[in-house]
């Protein structure tokens, strides 16, 4: 009994030591600077890190003073981690990056190679994976993060949701998360496509509160096409059409708009792609690999600007064929550009070989991008099905004259 009492007492004392840890690693919400956007530029041989931080008190519905709802801090350092920690010199609170929405990589950084920007974010336990990575074009990341945006009080939110919406509705941008990007850059085909962001308009006003006070916003942040990375260096920027074709090839089109000219060339017909499914098959891998790309598109008629009998299945058939030719042509021209101009297999044809013929892939992977991919034969076939005509049948505005 006595021994038992002793043991209980010792256990009690031991359990008290638990309390000595106190509130270890506790952070109150109002001691945090919530960083929502991170920009990384290369200045000389140092990293210039810009963090966009939310000022919660400015987001209150009740009271908002004239302060902006975000602040940006910029520091330089030999490493990114060093630069972020240096930020405490100018910020009153510790920078908290768990709620990072978007990371902007500066143009200079993209030219030099983006690997160094990713390592810290992948290693650090605090940063989550679910933010998107974009590249700035014709400006530094710092400049991009300093633009104030209307509608969204937090510019990072604008960048985040604008990317999501445009990917969903227009299909020329690509949502790239940190883990996906690292996968792209670390597999055998070291290439990636990141969405490009540009500043449109007067950058100086963009930094000022007045940017949000003018109806026709003077400075805007706009996504424009995709930046192509070979290894981790920027090799070129695709235009909107090419970006869309890229998304067709990657099977990342959720919905987009295509337009075709009318049979008599007296106007255009716009169609709304509601479903698109891309299959890439390796046809043969003898000396020159051959691929079959099958794209099945389902669409609705969205807008008609000419006299056309939509109720006739033949019209629709002809029209479908015309459209599929058009898309095929676009995609082929992109492939041609990737093969010859950039020599980068950003779509991942090589990966298809790796999946279907892993042994052969081992032999060719060393010379894939330089020697084999540019020669590869890629057959593109687009099948279009027109499903619906919207709420009208034949347009009453362009009625057939009889």
């Amino acid at each position, binding site marked *: 009994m006595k021994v038992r009492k002793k043991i209980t007492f010792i256990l009690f004392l031991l359990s008290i030591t*638990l*309390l000595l*840890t*106190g*509130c*270890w*690693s*506790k*952070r*109150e*919400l*109002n001691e*945090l600077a*919530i960083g*929502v956007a991170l920009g990384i530029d290369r200045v000389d041989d140092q990293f210039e890190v810009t963090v966009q931080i*939310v000022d*919660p*008190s400015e*987001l*209150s519905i009740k009271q908002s003073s004239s302060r902006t709802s975000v602040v940006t801090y910029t520091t330089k350092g030999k490493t990114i981690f060093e630069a972020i920690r240096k930020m405490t010199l100018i910020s009153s609170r510790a920078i*908290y990056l*768990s*709620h990072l*929405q978007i990371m902007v990589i500066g143009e200079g950084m993209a030219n030099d190679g983006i690997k160094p920007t990713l390592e810290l974010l992948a290693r650090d336990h*605090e940063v*989550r994976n679910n933010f998107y990575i974009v590249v700035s074009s014709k400006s530094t990341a710092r400049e991009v993060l300093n633009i104030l945006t209307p509608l969204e009080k*937090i510019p990072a939110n604008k960048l985040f949701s604008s990317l999501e919406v445009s990917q969903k509705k227009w299909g020329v941008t690509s949502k790239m998360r940190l883990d996906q990007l690292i996968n792209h850059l670390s597999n055998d085909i070291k290439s990636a496509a990141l969405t490009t962001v540009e500043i449109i308009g007067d950058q100086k006003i963009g930094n000022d509160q007045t940017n949000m006070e003018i109806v026709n916003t003077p400075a805007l942040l706009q996504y424009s096409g995709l930046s192509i990375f070979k290894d981790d260096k920027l090799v070129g920027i695709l235009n909107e059409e090419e970006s869309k074709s890229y998304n067709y090839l990657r099977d990342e089109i959720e919905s987009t708009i295509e337009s075709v000219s009318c049979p008599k060339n007296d106007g255009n017909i716009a169609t709304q792609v509601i479903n698109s499914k891309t299959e890439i098959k390796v046809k043969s891998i003898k000396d020159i690999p051959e691929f079959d790309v099958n794209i099945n598109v389902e669409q609705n008629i969205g807008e008609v600007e000419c006299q056309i009998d939509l109720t006739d299945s033949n019209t629709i058939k002809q029209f479908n064929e015309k459209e599929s030719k058009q898309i095929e042509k676009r995609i082929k021209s992109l492939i041609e550009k990737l093969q010859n101009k950039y020599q980068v297999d950003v779509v991942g044809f090589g990966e298809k070989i790796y999946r279907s013929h892993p042994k052969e892939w081992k032999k060719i992977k060393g010379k894939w991008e330089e020697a084999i991919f540019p020669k590869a034969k890629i057959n593109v076939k687009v099948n279009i099905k027109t499903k619906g005509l919207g709420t009208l049948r034949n347009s009453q505005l362009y009625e057939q004259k009889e």
Partner: protein
Amino acid sequence: MSFSKNNNSNSPESKKNKTKDPLLKSLAENVKIIKKVMGNSNDIIIREVDILKTDKQRIAIIYADGLADKTAITDFIMESLMLDIDSTPETREEDIIQYLKNFCLTVGDVEDVNDLQSVYRAVLNGETVILLEGQTKGIATSTKSSKDRAISQPSTESVIRGPQESFTETLRTNTALIRRKIKDPNLWIKSRVIGDITQTDVAIMYINGIANDKIVKEVLERLDQIEIDGILDSGYIEELIQDSQFTPFPTVFNSERPDVIAAALLEGKVAIIVDGSPFVLIVPALFPAFLQAAEDYYQRSIISTLIRILRYGGIFVSLMIPSLYISITTFHQEMIPTPMLISIALQREGVPFPAFIEAILMEIAFEILREAGLRMPRVIGPAVSIVGTLIIGQAAVEAGIVSAVMVIIVSITAICSFLSPAYAMSNSIRMLRFPLMILAAMFGLFGVMMGAFAIILHVCSLRSFGIPYTAPFAPLIPSDQKDAIVLFSRGSLLTRPRLVNQKNVTREQKLVRKKGRSDLGES
């Protein structure tokens, strides 16, 4: 009919009062002793008269004013003994006591008393004792006055649909209320007198043949082991017979509704009724019982099921939400969606305390308000609650002492804790919030999970009269799931709870409906 006498032989009461003073032959002596022992209290009426014209038998009529029914005494005792007795035939072969019992006392229940202790007990129970000169025996007649509170609506367990009666303070009324619902000869009552000084009647009720004999025996044993000077409410008994003293969870159920008690008896449980308390105890009491309201069974089972799910959710919310809030906002900010984080951060802006202190402050403030509102004279109650809501709900937020989210958290917690129909359970749950909040402030979600584990392990280790507290969840009893979280329709509640009841399991025959409609349209 007094309880004390039926089981005198085996109740511990009789063992304790070993020194019995026998009645003396001299009536005057007896009266003297009684007056002395009872301290000449003026509510003890001792009336000495001579009866029988011929023999002049001197008797003393003793009763307690207020406890005994005065009209009964005058009508059935005084009048019979003093007037009517002369008209009865005087062929007395047997002794006078038997003669009086046979011919004079027109009262239902008559008993012999042999010693002074029995006299005291009888008088204090409202009986009238008649002592006779030259006899070492007396007669106790039942003249208990039935001054009693009227049966009113239940105040703590109200229902919209269902019986609207509740127990009163009188044991007899309470047993009658139950008997009125279960008209079966197998509804048995065993009684005990507990409390050396208060001599409180305690009755246990069960349905013989349905209740588990082991549980009945266990209840009686535990009652017999009680040694206490006074029992003033069934709460005393509850604490003295519960399985485990060191637990925040109630292991004895109580109700003031006769229908709840009757339902429990039908399940094979045992009811303990204490004189002077309108709250009847039920054992064994299992965890799910505390989340089941009487009305669940009176409305359609689908609705009851939804409401039960709500109650389990409410228990979870009131137990965990404050600690989850503290741990997530101080340790795991990455778990909050960004817009919500910004919104919470906005409200925390300028709040001087850490989230934990803020939460503790508000929770304690709520407990204070609740307790004050409960004990307050009814007239002041609303004033206090208005001041409370204004201070907590508005002024504190506007002054920036606490954040608005915290007020929401505290009020949700508070309201959810009252979703449990049993007040005892909502108290335990509200109490357990505090250790969880401390754990959350120290170790974050890790601490909260440890705390939750500890609570679950503890609950699983509890037993109520030998039955696992968490049955039918742990151990999982598939056949009892029909009345746990989900309530099946009445027609499929065919068996009684398996662990409570092992003898007579089948509750009812399967409902057989005639196929086809036999309405007027066919004929």
